[in-house]
Structure formats: structure tokens, C-alpha cells
């Protein structure tokens, strides 16, 4: 992507004003309308939630070392996996990339000074905080034991835990997603820089756009569904409980109508990140731009048509099962297309292996395995056995942790210099990426075998024949934990001690690297850019005299 300035830039005042040092009061953060500051506030909030969810995961893995674990009661164990799922899905994975990296990068990537609705963006953060606070309060004041799936009538009638309060929190946080989605859609439609046509957009923007469609269409359904659970719980309205005249399968239909597309909310943005990283570290234009862009839209739309594959054994009709199975096999195709295109991008590239690239390559490997094991679950006959076993647990962790979180970590490393103006320690980052990859496989591959052997998920106690693999998995989880703790330490360290980042340390294409210093000024662009090149024009970038751009803090000018 290339850019020419409309005028020469004026010399910079010293010290340079950035979004970080323009106002240091608490109020200047809590009342900010700057998408970059809101992104930072989201980053801090979701990181805290990740610690909560990770702590719950640690307790689960510790408990499962023994077939009849005695660290906690059955009730506590059930609350623990419920907390892990609810926190990680609703309060970490769903907002992770969109609300942090998307919030920070999308306006800059499209040459805008902010999102279309800055106040709405701030409200999104407050809704998230209120929602997360309420759900967290529910979990800490006694907990909830329904699992993140809230299956009825257990959740709506039988559970004696804080279901209502937890749901209220999720309901409120849902509006945060909806507002974020609206903001992205309007911004991407209306605020692209002159010359930045749809097919010159970075693929990350396409991915965020597709994700926003799901936010907008899916989130209201889960909000209403969970509200109905609360109504049945409090007023005994007969909606899902057959004893009141309701239908428990109806809940499953409504729940998965959102919660399957929600998987794509988690994975699509990571795919977008990987589409940025691979061309940069292969120094090559991405292979099959159009196919990657359209596959994001295809995934977002077809993702709404496969929810019934969570219900093959539920009692839904055999014919529904067949339709959903058929569509589920087909939705694997656009994902496979992406994997092919990323791989093909490396062909005849000039490949280097900085930490973001290691995360991106790890993503491809783990996502490929996660996607392929999804086919087992899309297959009607195989799913009859594998449904609700550890095979499913392993599968979706390959997608959500191996895929979504690897992508998130890759994006964090890739854009960290831009966001903070500091470099992270590359050697440690590479070590952490490798530890994460192996620790992850060590944790979750044994769970595929456990599932094949028949170990059901959400089992506090299990038959002794499953113990060896559970121990392996728990050891793997300990290794994986280091893969997250190490970056947490060096990221914080780098804020003060890291070397100052140049404007474009990766010599990457894109407005955020070519046009904006690290860290960016509050209004991003002194002069709005005009875009004249397609995305990922690394041939042009590497042909530039000053393509290192690295030395320059203002950068992005004089390329004629």
C-alpha cells in the first residue's frame, strides 16, 4: 500500500506529542474518546479477565491429575469450569482482538482519525466493565455451575447458583459487542482514506468487518435467549422447561445460533492478524487476496447456518442433522482456502522468523489441526461417539487457544512497537512462542485420545484408566502457562526498559507503519493520506531507498 502526502509535513515539536503523553490524569483516560486509549483500557481489562480464566484452568488441570481429585468438592469443580468458560469466552476471547487490536489499528489502517462514533466506543468499554464486573461478582460471591452453555432446564430451574446475576453481566457485555460491531461497520464503510478501495484494504480490516457482522446479527440472539432463561428462572414462564410447558431443545437452537458464529468471532480476527504477519515476514504480496477476503465473509455468513451440528445427539430430527452436517462440511472449505493461501504466500518469499512470524506459523499448524478435527464432529456418525467428550474439548481449544490466542499473541508482538513505542525483547519472545506451541500441544493433544477413549467432558471424577493422559495434559498446561507468563513479564518490562521502537521496525506495508510514528499522535494523521497502491506491496517497499523507515521517527515521506 503506498501513500503520498498531500503536503510536506511540518517539523515536529519536541518532545513529540503522542496519544500516550497527551494528558496523564486518570480522567484523561477514563473519559477519553481516543480509540487508541480505549484499546489500551480494553487490553488491561481483558488481560485481568485472562488471569481469572487462566487461574480457573490451572485449578481444573491440578484437580484432574487424580481420578478422584480432592482439592475441591464437586460443586466447586463445576463452578470452576463454568467460570473458566464464561470468563474466557465472553470476557476474553470475544473482545480480545476486535476491541484491542481492531480498536487501535482499524482507524489507522484505513487512514481515519478515529472510529465513526468515539463516544459509543467509550460506552462499549464501560458496558464491558459493568458486565464483567457483575459476572465476576456473581462468580466470586458463590459462583455459577451451569457451564458456559447454560443448558436448560438445568440453568433455568434446577441450579441453585448465581445464574441470574451471571447472565445479567453477559447480557450487558453483549451490548459492548454490538456497539463495537456497529462502530467498525460504519467506520470501514464511510471513513476509508481517498484511494483506499475495498480491495486495497488490509485483510485484517476485512476480517474485523466480517466479525462485526456477526457481532451485530448474533449477539442480540444470545442476549434474548439468556434473558428468557432469567425470565423462566424468576417468573417460571414456560419457555424451556417442559414441566412449565416449554421446550429444552429450543434453548439449544437459540443458544448455538449465536454461539457457533461466536467461534468465528474468535477466530476470524486472528486470521486477519495472520494475513498481515505472513506477507510482512515473507516480504511478499499475499497470495490470493480476493479469496482470503471473501472467505472471511463466507465464514461469517455460512457460520450462521451450521448451529445444529452441536445438536446431532440432542433429539433434533435426523433430517435436520443431515442438513447441518452437510453445511458444516462445506464451511470447512473457506478456512482451508485461507490456509492454502497463507502457505502459498511463503513460496518464493524471503522469510525471516521474528516472534510475530513464529506465532503466525504456529497458528497455521494448530488451526489446521483444529479445523480437521472439526470434520470428525461435523460427521454425523463420528459425532455420535465423540460429542461431549474430551475430543470436543481438545478440538475447540485447538481453534480458540491454538488459533485465536496464537493470533492474538502474534498481533500483540507485531503491533507492540506501534502501540507502545517500545520494542519487546526478541529472543525472549521467540522462546515464549516456541514454549507456547509445544506446551499447547502437550496439553491438548492427549485430550483427543481421552475423547476417543470415551472420557466425557465436565467430569470431576473419572475412571482410573484415563489418569495417565490426564497427567500428561496437566504437565503440558504447566508448560503452556510459562508461554503466557514470560510475555506478560517482558511486555511490562519493555514499557520502561525496552529500546525505543522506530516507526516501522518490520519494514511493513500499511498506513499504520508507513504514515504514523510509534506511538501514534492522538489524531493519528497530521494530514490524511491518499492511497495509491494495493495492500502488501512488499516489492515496492523493499525497493525503496529508505525502506528501513526504521531510522526515521516521522517516516513515510519522500518516497515520491
Amino acid at each position, binding site marked *: 500500500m503506498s501513500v503520498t502526502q498531500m503536503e510536506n509535513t511540518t517539523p515536529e515539536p519536541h518532545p513529540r506529542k503522542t496519544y500516550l503523553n497527551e494528558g496523564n490524569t486518570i480522567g484523561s483516560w477514563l473519559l477519553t474518546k481516543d480509540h487508541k486509549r480505549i484499546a489500551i483500557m480494553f487490553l488491561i481489562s481483558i488481560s485481568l479477565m485472562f488471569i481469572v480464566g487462566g487461574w480457573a484452568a490451572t485449578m481444573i488441570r491440578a484437580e484432574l491429575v487424580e481420578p478422584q481429585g480432592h482439592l475441591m468438592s464437586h460443586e466447586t469443580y463445576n463452578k470452576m469450569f463454568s467460570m473458566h468458560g464464561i470468563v474466557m469466552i465472553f470476557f476474553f476471547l470475544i473482545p480480545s482482538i476486535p476491541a484491542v487490536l481492531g480498536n487501535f489499528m482499524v482507524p489507522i489502517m484505513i487512514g481515519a482519525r478515529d472510529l465513526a462514533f468515539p463516544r459509543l466506543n467509550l460506552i462499549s468499554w464501560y458496558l464491558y466493565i459493568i458486565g464483567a464486573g457483575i459476572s465476576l461478582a456473581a462468580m466470586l460471591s458463590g459462583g455459577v455451575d451451569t457451564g458456559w452453555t447454560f443448558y436448560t432446564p438445568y440453568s433455568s430451574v434446577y441450579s441453585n447458583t448465581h445464574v441470574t446475576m451471571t447472565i445479567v453481566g453477559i447480557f450487558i457485555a453483549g451490548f459492548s459487542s454490538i456497539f463495537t460491531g456497529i462502530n467498525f461497520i460504519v467506520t470501514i464503510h464511510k471513513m476509508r482514506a481517498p484511494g483506499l478501495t475495498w480491495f486495497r484494504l488490509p485483510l485484517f480490516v476485512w476480517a474485523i468487518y466480517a466479525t462485526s457482522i456477526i457481532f451485530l446479527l448474533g449477539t442480540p440472539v444470545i442476549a434474548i435467549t439468556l434473558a428468557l432463561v432469567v425470565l423462566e428462572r424468576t417468573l417460571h414462564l414456560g419457555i424451556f422447561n417442559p414441566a412449565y*410447558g416449554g421446550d429444552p431443545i429450543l434453548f439449544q437452537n437459540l443458544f448455538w445460533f449465536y454461539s457457533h458464529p461466536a467461534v468465528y468471532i474468535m477466530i476470524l480476527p486472528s486470521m486477519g492478524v495472520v494475513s498481515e504477519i505472513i506477507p510482512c515476514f515473507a516480504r511478499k504480496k499475499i497470495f490470493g487476496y480476493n479469496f482470503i477476503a471473501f472467505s472471511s465473509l463466507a465464514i461469517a455468513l455460512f457460520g450462521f447456518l451450521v448451529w445444529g451440528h452441536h445438536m446431532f445427539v440432542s433429539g433434533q430430527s435426523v433430517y435436520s442433522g443431515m442438513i447441518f452436517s452437510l453445511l458444516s462440511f462445506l464451511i470447512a472449505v473457506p478456512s482451508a482456502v485461507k490456509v492454502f493461501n497463507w502457505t502459498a504466500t511463503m513460496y518464493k518469499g*524471503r522469510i525471516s522468523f521474528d516472534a510475530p512470524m513464529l506465532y503466525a506459523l504456529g497458528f497455521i499448524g494448530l488451526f489446521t489441526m483444529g479445523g480437521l478435527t472439526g470434520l470428525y464432529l461435523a460427521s454425523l456418525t463420528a459425532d455420535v461417539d465423540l460429542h461431549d467428550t474430551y475430543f470436543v474439548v481438545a478440538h475447540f481449544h485447538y481453534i480458540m487457544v491454538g488459533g485465536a490466542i496464537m493470533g492474538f499473541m502474534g498481533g500483540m508482538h507485531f503491533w507492540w512497537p506501534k502501540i507502545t513505542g517500545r520494542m519487546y525483547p526478541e529472543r525472549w519472545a521467540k522462546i515464549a512462542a516456541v514454549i507456547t506451541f509445544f506446551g499447547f500441544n502437550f496439553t491438548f493433544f492427549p485430550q483427543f485420545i481421552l475423547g476417543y477413549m470415551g472420557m466425557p467432558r465436565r467430569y470431576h471424577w473419572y475412571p482410573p484408566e484415563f489418569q495417565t493422559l490426564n497427567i500428561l495434559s496437566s504437565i503440558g498446561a504447566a508448560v503452556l502457562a510459562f508461554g503466557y507468563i514470560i510475555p506478560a513479564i517482558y511486555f511490562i518490562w519493555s514499557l520502561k526498559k525496552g529500546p525505543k521502537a522506530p516507526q516501522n521496525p518490520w519494514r511493513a506495508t500499511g498506513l499504520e507503519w508507513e504514515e504514523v510514528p510509534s506511538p501514534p499522535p492522538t489524531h493519528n494523521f497530521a494530514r490524511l493520506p491518499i492511497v495509491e497502491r494495493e495492500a502488501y506491496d512488499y516489492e515496492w517497499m523493499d525497493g525503496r531507498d529508505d525502506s528501513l523507515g526504521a531510522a526515521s521517527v516521522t517516516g513515510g515521506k519522500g518516497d515520491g
Partner: protein
Amino acid sequence: MLKNHLFANAASSFAPKFDDIFFVLTALSVFFTVLVLSLIVIFAIRYRVASTIDRGKPITHNTKLEFTIIGFLSVVGLGVFFWSAKPYATIYGAPPANAQKIYVIGKQWMWEIQHPDGIRENDALHLPLGRPVQLILISQDVVHSFFVPAFKVKRDVVPGMYTSVWFVPTKIGRFRLFCAQYCGAFHSQMTGWVTVMKPKDFAAWEAAGGSFSEGGHETSMVQTGKALFNKYGCVSCHGVSTGMAPSLSNLYMSKVHLTNGSTAIADDAYIREAILNPTAHVPVGYQPIMPVFKDELNEGQVLDLIAYIKSLSATGLPQSPANGASNSSGTGLKAKGKTR
């Protein structure tokens, strides 16, 4: 060879079909994973930044190749889809005529099994080798799931709705039974054992009244249903030509016209609803005078009553105390599609 070794434990008619599909999916997965990973490793080494290899004529797109890949993968996907659809439709569909029906009631946190001849078991199920068995499942409270890994068979057990699954046990032994759908505090202890016996041993077990189980011998489901029918005084209205309520002989699988204008087939699900919530199922020509039994009867008792009502059907075989009418071949065929 390898395959036989890997999947030596298949213990039901469905398990080999699962194993075949699992094996092929695993082969496909290994193939594609190895393909992608080796391409990445090869490219990463060949085109590493330090390498001076020829990078001439780089390509950035190839529409034909993309569509070829899309087409190829779609065909492979559709192939696996069609292949794996049939065994699924089979086990959740109508069973063979000679299938033994066994009723499974899930409740927090135990499994109650009712054999038509009256043997009841808790957290245990005894089956004869080689005879098709259809499980009819319903939950007393929340959603459970009946899962026997050795059979590769699983079926959700849902409140308010009969579900079914059928298979043939093909291996003698004791196999674990799990609840696979999270159902509350003691979910992980809602387990039991399925015992598959030689037909001769099973007959002896049956004759001894299921002495290997805790329940001991009881009267058949039909007889238990009849006793309930008398206990609740059903006969005072449903007796022959009282005029107050429809006679129940020949009711089963007949067409019923309701006062709300709809018609229903009097299958198991209908009869269950009509007993528990009669006011919503008043046949044309009758008053809504029947008491509501939904807080009175548990799912096991409802199954007993349905078995008794079925036995009143003239099309069924003559009632036999030793062998509930519900497993006669006639009703077995008519049962087609009535449960899901």
C-alpha cells in the same frame, strides 16, 4: 491389520461403522496436516532470508488453482458427509422388527432401566448378545446423555420428550456407561455398567428376575401399568361405554380428533402428554374433566401406563403377562418415526 488392532474393542453393530469413518477421517487429517506442515517447513528453509535461491517469477494469485482446491475439498467433504449420514440415520431411526425395547429414565443422578418384563435396574443394564435392542429414553428432570463408549453410542435424554437409539451388542463383557451431558453436582458419578451376556446366560438372568441387579423381579410393565390404572381409578371414566371419556381399547396409534381442531396420532408421546396434561388434549365429544397427573406420576409410571394402554389395543397380540405387548413385532413396525 493396523485397523483391526486399533479398533479391536468395537462392541456394537454401530461401532465398526464409527471405526471406519474415524479411521478415514484420521487418515485424511494426517495427510492434510503433514502436507501443510511440510510445505511450511520446506518453504521456511528454502526461502529463508539468508538463502540465495532463485525467487524469479513470484506468483500472487491463481484463480484456477483456488477453484480446483475448493472443488476438490468440497467433493471430499461431501463424500464423507454422505458416507457418515447413513449409520446415524439408522440408529436413530426405526429398529428392526425383532428389537427388544428397553426404557431408560435419567434423573439427577442415576439411571433407571425398565425392561418390559418388569425387571428394573439402577445404573446397570443387562443385554443379550446379538439381539437388536432399542432404548427409549426420557429424563425426569434436566437433560442427560446416555453414553456407552464401547458401543460408540450416545443419545441425549431429554425431559418431556422420548428419544431413541438402537443397536446390536456384539461383544460379551462389561462396559462403562456415562452421563455425557452436564447435569449438575454429581454429573461425573451418574455412571454405571452395561453387561452383555450370552443369550443363554441372559435368559437365566431374566428367569432369576435379574438377580444380578439390585432391583429384583417385579411385575411386568403392563401389569404395573394396570395396577396404576386401577389405583388412580382411571377405569371409572375410561371403562367400556361410560360415555365420560373415550375408551382406551384400540387407542394406540389411532387418529384422535381434538376439540382444539387438530388431529393427533395416539403414539407414545401423545399418550404421555394426554395423561400428564389432559386439558390440552380433549378429544371431540368429551368434556375437559380429567385431572392433571403431571405432579402425580413419574416418567417410569407413565411408561408403565403407556405399556398397559398399548396392551389394550386389539391389533396387538393378546396380552401376555410375561412379555409386554410393546415388543411384539406388530407394534415394533408401527412405532416407526414416533420417537425422535
